[in-house]
């Protein structure tokens, strides 16, 4: 039996966008998946983001996620590098 999977877009900003040379990356994840799985998939698909991953947060539907946060099938996901507003 094949595991169910789904596709997500991860929005990229600031230094993450510059490193990836893209506004977003598309990832394929097994279902169910957590934010930790998203991190791992980013690591595999975009090694150039590696130096930024540890200090970055993931946001799901405009809220910060923990590693254990589940990823809904239809959601907006973003990688949030250390913020420097103000």
């Amino acid at each position, binding site marked *: 039996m094949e595991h169910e999977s789904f596709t997500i877009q991860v929005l990229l*900003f600031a230094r993450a966008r510059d490193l990836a040379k893209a506004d977003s990356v598309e990832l394929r994840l097994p279902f169910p998946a957590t934010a930790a799985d998203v991190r791992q998939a980013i690591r595999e698909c975009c090694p150039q983001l590696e130096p930024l991953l540890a200090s970055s947060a993931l*946001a799901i539907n405009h809220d910060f996620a923990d590693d254990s946060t589940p990823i809904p099938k239809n959601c907006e996901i*973003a990688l*949030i590098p250390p*913020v*420097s*507003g*103000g």
Partner: protein
Amino acid sequence: MIRLTRDPIETHELTQSVLRPGCGAVVLFLGTVRDLTGDERTVFLDYEAYAPMAEAKMAEIEADVRSRWPVGEIGIVHRLGRLYVGEVSVAVAVSCPHRDQAFEAARHAIDRVKELVPIWKKDHAPDGQSEWVPGTPLTR
């Protein structure tokens, strides 16, 4: 009231908008683009935001401040785009009955904005070099 804008921040209108007859104290904080960071000279900064999340976080900060202090009105405005030295990048205005409250509330609001709101700035030096300002990792 929270707002992201690409236009110059109307700091006077913001200040006037928080005045309330029951509040004897208003504190306005302005963050402006500094010419130097350590020894590094800045010509301009480019600000970008993850706008819908930035607005959501700014609204959360407004609600948090209102829950902690007896706020008459509060306004938080962050500017985006290219800002030259001296321009106002962020403004927080708060009115409260008494000054200790207004000072604490404004300080808390700007601290939280700098910690939680997904906005980034890229520093452009006189030699044409540019780099993203390192910023603070989220501790939440």
